[in-house]
């Protein structure tokens, strides 16, 4: 086995036993990145020197007998999270040369545990997109089929994990941006409960929906990273002072007594690929076989979720992205004769078309005279969706569904059709609207050999349940062991 193929857990064991050093491991991962990056294009910035220096420090720590589960483990960070001294672009021309003077809380937490940051991964610009085609920097390819999209917006993080270009990574999920690329790349991706993980230093797309989550090679690694990044942060008022359990502790508990809800509305969605529905049905069967009980549930307001989401998220985004005005940092257009022109040119040149589209939608939705009909109404729908889940969880412990209606599509297929792209978020964005946790775990491959993921959603702050179900399923299947073939 190649070093870069290790999981966090297996690498940790070898580091602890001093079979390998972090420098060897990090070197192997960096070499792997340089070998396959031209095909995958997962990284915006590869921090070779910084990573090797951090690895050296990790080795010193380990030699002193201090080792955490993340000490010396090479991880990748979505380029939406601030890294002190390391360029953070949000895949946008407007922040192309932005170097933050501070670390995001999650980055600080990983660094405090001795993790090595190998680089910053590609994404849709400001996390707006489901394919990475909207990156202002480059196009990441799906390691399973380089002609296809890796998913998005955390496409770089998912592709990097799938292609062994890091041991694990962090993404962020506003409407499915961790779970959907995880599904498309056959890795594990979790969106924690809103408030579970600090958003400080995560560049905001839609503040009430954004949540950072891990992308990993298996469920155990997901639990390890969840342990590291979760918890209240006084710098984020929306983070919740709720105790953080040891997420690895309950993985091996069985599924007896667990009730699974199957939302009928999710399986009535038009355009659901038969390979996807087949794989998910098989997965549900498997989970039932392991002792879980399945019940039919209803999430009656599902059909309004996409519309509500695409009002709320762009509205918040239109305000969150107002700060990129060329005044203090980032790109400023040189061609300007007055203030308005500086704003106009800077933002027209600096932002890509999808970001501009969403700023325009959001600005419109918040405008005087339209607020009640759009933002106000969408907020009401959001409450109804929360109620749907609350009711559903009275009768079940977790909800199983597909992650996306179809496997990864070819690059360019939907680029001129934003509506189809938005509609493909149907299964994931309800969890963001309701603030509940969700996980995507590999559950099969299409007839074309493309990965398919299973989504498990749970109650607020009940990530343990999701991890337990995912772990049991993973142990009973081999999907996570399959690797994409890269030349």
């Amino acid at each position, binding site marked *: 086995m190649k070093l870069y193929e290790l999981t966090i857990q297996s690498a940790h064991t070898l580091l602890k036993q001093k079979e390998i050093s972090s420098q060897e491991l990090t070197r192997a991962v960096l070499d792997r990145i340089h070998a396959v990056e031209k095909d995958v294009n997962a990284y915006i910035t590869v921090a070779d020197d910084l990573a090797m220096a951090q690895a050296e420090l990790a080795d010193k720590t380990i030699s002193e007998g201090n080792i955490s589960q993340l000490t010396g483990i090479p991880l990748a960070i979505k380029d939406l999270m601030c890294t002190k001294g390391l360029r*953070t672009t949000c895949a946008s021309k407007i922040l192309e040369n932005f170097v*933050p003077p*501070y670390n995001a809380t999650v980055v600080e937490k990983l660094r405090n545990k001795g993790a090595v940051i190998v680089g910053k991964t590609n994404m849709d610009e400001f996390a707006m997109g489901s394919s990475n085609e909207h990156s202002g920097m480059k196009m990441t390819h799906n390691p399973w089929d380089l002609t296809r999209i890796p998913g998005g917006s955390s496409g770089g993080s998912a592709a990097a994990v799938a292609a062994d270009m890091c041991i694990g990574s962090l993404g962020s999920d506003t409407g499915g941006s961790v779970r959907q690329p995880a599904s498309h790349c056959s890795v594990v991706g979790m969106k924690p409960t809103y408030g579970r993980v600090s958003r*400080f230093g995560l*560049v905001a797309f839609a*503040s009430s929906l954004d949540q950072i989550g891990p992308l990993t090679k298996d469920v155990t690694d997901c639990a390890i990273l969840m342990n590291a990044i979760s918890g209240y942060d006084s710098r984020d008022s929306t983070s919740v002072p709720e105790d953080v359990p040891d997420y690895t502790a309950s993985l091996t508990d069985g599924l007896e007594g667990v009730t699974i809800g199957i939302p009928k509305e999710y399986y009535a969605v038009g355009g659901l690929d038969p390979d996807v529905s087949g794989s998910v049905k098989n997965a549900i069967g498997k989970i039932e076989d392991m002792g879980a009980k399945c019940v039919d549930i209803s999430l009656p307001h599902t059909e309004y979720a996409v519309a509500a989401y695409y009002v709320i998220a762009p*509205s918040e985004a*239109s305000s969150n992205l107002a700060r990129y005005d060329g*005044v203090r940092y980032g790109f400023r257009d040189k061609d300007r004769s007055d203030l308005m022109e500086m704003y106009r040119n800077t933002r027209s040149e600096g932002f890509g078309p999808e970001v501009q589209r969403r700023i325009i939608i959001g600005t419109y939705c918040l405008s005087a005279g339209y607020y009640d009909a759009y933002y106000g109404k969408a907020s009401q729908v959001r409450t109804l969706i929360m109620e749907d889940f609350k009711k559903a969880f009275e009768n079940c412990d977790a909800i199983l569904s597909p992650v996306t209606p179809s496997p990864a599509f070819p690059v360019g297929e939907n680029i001129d059709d934003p509506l189809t792209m938005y509609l493909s978020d149907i299964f994931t964005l309800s969890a963001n609207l309701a603030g509940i946790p969700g996980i995507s775990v590999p559950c099969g491959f299409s007839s074309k050999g493309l990965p398919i993921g299973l989504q498990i959603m749970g109650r607020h702050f009940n990530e343990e349940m999701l991890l337990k179900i995912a772990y049991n399923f993973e142990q009973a299947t081999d999907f996570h062991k399959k690797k994409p073939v890269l030349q």
Partner: protein
Amino acid sequence: MEFESVIGLEVHAQLKTRTKIFCNCSTAFGAPPNTHTCPVCLGMPGVLPVLNKKVVEYAIRMAIATNCTIARESRFARKNYFYPDLPKGYQISQYELPIAEFGYIDIEQNGNKKRIGITRIHIEEDAGKLTHDPNRPVSMVDFNRTGVPLIEIVSEPDIRSPEEAGAYLRHLHSVVRYLDICDGNMEEGSFRCDANVSVMLKGSETFGTRAELKNLNSFKHVEKAIYFETERQKDIVLDGGEVIQETRLWDPAKSVTTSIRTKEDAHDYRYFPDPDLLPLVVDDDWVDRVKATLPELPDARMKRFVREFSLPPYDAGVLTSSREIADYFEDCLKVFPEPKQVSNWVMGSLLGLLNAEGKSIEDSPIPAHDLGALLKLMDEDVINGRMAKTVFEKMAQTGKTPKTIIKEDGLVQVTDASAIEAIVSEVLARSPKEIEDYKNGKTRVIGFFVGQVMKATKGKANPKIVNEILKDKLSC
């Protein structure tokens, strides 16, 4: 045609918390540009606001002092607009659910009491400051002020004249100073006022179209600008024209208002609840705790001064117009407990002196206990009233205590009757004509004799004794 003005004021008071509203940067005024900044108040990518609890406490103080209903749950909202002094592209403020509403204050003018409604008080952050290079097409921005906490106090359109507006504003100013939540400095902009002004025919029920006046940075300018604006609007109506809704800037140099923005160019601020901040919950317990720490407010103190010190309401009003004057007065009383006499000296001599020098009472060269001591010395006949005036002036010039000045200048009053009698005899001996006049019924001449005696004693003779001896001698 007789008109009536309809005026509502929006007052911004900078709260004197040590740190900013959403980060730990200092709020101190006057530091070199951009030295009191951090990623949070600079609006860097990914940063988040964390509310300073002290700001809420100060807002609660103001809400209690202005008889407002305090919201159990209020919300922060984003006010979106682009300007280089606004780093996030939005100002965090409160919109639909402010912290306090439905309050009032009572003002008094020429003995007439009037209640002015307070529509709402809300919390928000201040913006930065732009300066424009006069020689190059370059503007510079200083973010030190960005994120300094403000409360905005919005009045009902209950005000009917420039003078009433002034009285309302002075009262609010006095309240924030009493509460110790704002330094009230209008020149530095820590207490700012915008005015909404319209005119209507007297007795009408419908308000006219209003103009919003900006740049009113002193009490005088507020009154003058409102006066100008109401006259301008009246003229328009009288000429058969129509007042348009606009924002107008007061030009203190020319004493006119000029249009800067009409309704068509008005911003659409696209307010929505700030998702980065939780709803602000203020429970009864918190309100009670703040209430317990509240100082005595101007109205209550004025009533107490009338009741406890038997002062005329006018005196009590002047003395309680600022917390510092009232404190000064009460400190004087500790040394010399004669309220009316102290009041006369504070209102007359001291405030007169300070006004003439453009100073506030905190900068008074005469500390309260020294003024008290001076009055006590006068009461004990150590010096007379005339000497007291002289000593007072010397105290103001030198900052020395009255005792020191009296000692240095040998200003002890002459109360020795035999010494005074000798001088009186001398004066009478050289004034036969005046004695004649006096005996012929011109009793006013007594003033001449007193003056002569005082002159001879360099003002040190006890006037009471002088009078007694004079009357005694002249009657025989």
